[in-house]
């Protein structure tokens, strides 16, 4: 079993000394609107590297919209308008010469509902890397990716069967494996457990602890217990405004803002 390979970077790109202070992912005064309806207003924060950052907030607060602007998945909405800046290692994701296809290679995403391709388990993992001309060994990639999401032992005898035959929780772990097979700099998760049962949910949460050793994860969740359990940092959004950003312990136990306190104690939302 291959657990690690020596040439694999744990912290990819930029090794220049001054880059130490450049956050891996940062949003600067981001304003996002659909037509005339502004859903995110002047949001600024930096995502810490190899940590889990949770974005929480009541329904409709713009947390999913914000997350989807991190890998330009909002580009498909014709009326979307994004101002301010979102940067990966100090480089604007919305600069004119940036190809969104390249952004999405570097910033992976896991969706709310498991959405494996209706193909074999094996092809689900290799399809993405192949798009970008992956030169390594396919079997190795599949085994490594599936092992990291603790799915290898369950599926190693049926790698060439359809992924649609897996349970919901297995499908979601496969989707995570598919995303990390790309060696993304950042992994975005949009309520990845909301369609899963409690057992599958806790397996994914365990998985997040393993994954954060290598990957920077941003997770949107409407489940505050989940945010408190899994994340290192928490951003609290309310009506499109960033109310508070800080270490999860601090946000949940000693919030600076009254609105945060009200929300995390369940008084609204």
């Amino acid at each position, binding site marked *: 079993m291959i657990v690690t390979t020596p040439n694999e970077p744990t912290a990819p790109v930029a090794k220049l000394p001054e880059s130490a202070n450049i956050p891996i992912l940062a949003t600067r005064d981001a304003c996002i609107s659909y037509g005339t309806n502004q859903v995110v207003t002047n949001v600024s924060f930096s995502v810490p590297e190899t940590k889990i950052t949770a974005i929480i907030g009541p329904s409709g607060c713009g947390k999913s919209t914000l997350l989807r602007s991190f890998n330009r998945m909002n580009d498909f909405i014709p009326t979307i308008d994004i101002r301010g800046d979102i940067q990966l290692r100090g480089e604007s994701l919305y600069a004119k010469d940036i190809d969104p296809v390249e*952004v999405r290679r570097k910033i992976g995403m896991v969706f709310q509902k498991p959405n494996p*391709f209706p193909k074999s388990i094996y092809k689900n993992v290799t*399809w993405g890397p192949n*798009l970008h001309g992956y030169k390594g060994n396919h079997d190795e990639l599949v085994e490594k990716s599936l092992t990291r999401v603790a799915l290898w032992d369950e599926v190693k005898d049926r790698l060439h069967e359809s992924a*649609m035959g897996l349970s919901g929780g297995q499908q979601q772990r496969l989707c995570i494996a598919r*995303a990390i097979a790309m060696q993304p700099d950042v992994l975005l998760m949009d309520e990845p457990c909301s369609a899963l049962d409690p057992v599958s949910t806790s397996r994914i949460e365990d998985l997040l602890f393993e994954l954060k050793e290598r990957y920077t994860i941003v997770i949107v969740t409407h489940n505050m217990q989940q945010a408190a359990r899994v994340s290192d940092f928490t951003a609290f959004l309310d009506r499109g405004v960033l109310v508070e950003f800080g270490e999860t312990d601090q946000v949940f136990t000693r919030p600076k803002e009254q609105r945060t306190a009200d929300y995390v104690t369940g008084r609204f939302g």
Partner: protein
Amino acid sequence: MTTSDLMFDSNLGKRQRRAARFRRLVAGATWSGVVLLAVMLFHIVKEGIGWVDWQFLTSFPSIDAEKAGIKAALAGTIWVIGLTACISIPVGVASAIYLEEYAKPSRLNRLIEVNISNLAGVPSIVYGMLGATIFVRWLHLGQSVLAGALTLSLLILPVIIIASREAIRAVPSSLRQAAFALGATRWQTVSGHVLPAATPGILTGVILALSRSMGETAPLVMMGALTYVAYTPTGITDEFTALPIIIYNWSDRPQQVFHELAAGGIVVLLAVLLAMNAIAVFIRHRSQRNSP
């Protein structure tokens, strides 16, 4: 009596009788169609099956009913429909992909969409006139296989485009998002996931459209396809005749024996249609095995 009995006058007996009446109505509609079709089919097969033999399939038309056959018409139909498929499937599916995946909602695209739907309802004889004018006369293609195929392609393109668009639209957007999130380009997403998922639906539309074009007589007669041909086409520029034309021609003759020959021709046409539909079902079944 409970309180709720006092609150409602549920009239359950009447409601159930109405439900049963509606069930009989829809079942009756279905069965009357099936029975009518079965009677027609039985009549045709009884009249024509006696004539369908190897000699019938391999002979050219003749004024002697005993020696007459459909070789030229069957070959002509296969040539024309084959070429129609080669023209209309790529153009139709490509148009559907463009309209569903690429075109931005603009006034021009709205106009195109509305008109494609309208074109699907235009009578086939109008396409025949169009084909006669554009392909036969302007482009000097003559009464060739190519002119016939182009005319029939025009006829079925709207149907193929509409069916393919429906099939592409039915592909869940979560599949596209999964591909895009891995850094796939629009084309990689479409070719890798959208088209494979839409293939069963597209095939259904394509086969229905081709079946329709195979039975079309009016456009081919309009563009001047021949009725008496004593050779099979060897290329797309050759003149041709087709099954529906020879069937129409035979059934127009006064002698009863030719009406029976026409019935035999219909039996062959139906057999070819059934075979095409069987292939479509087979391909659909195969491509659906791996789908959600």
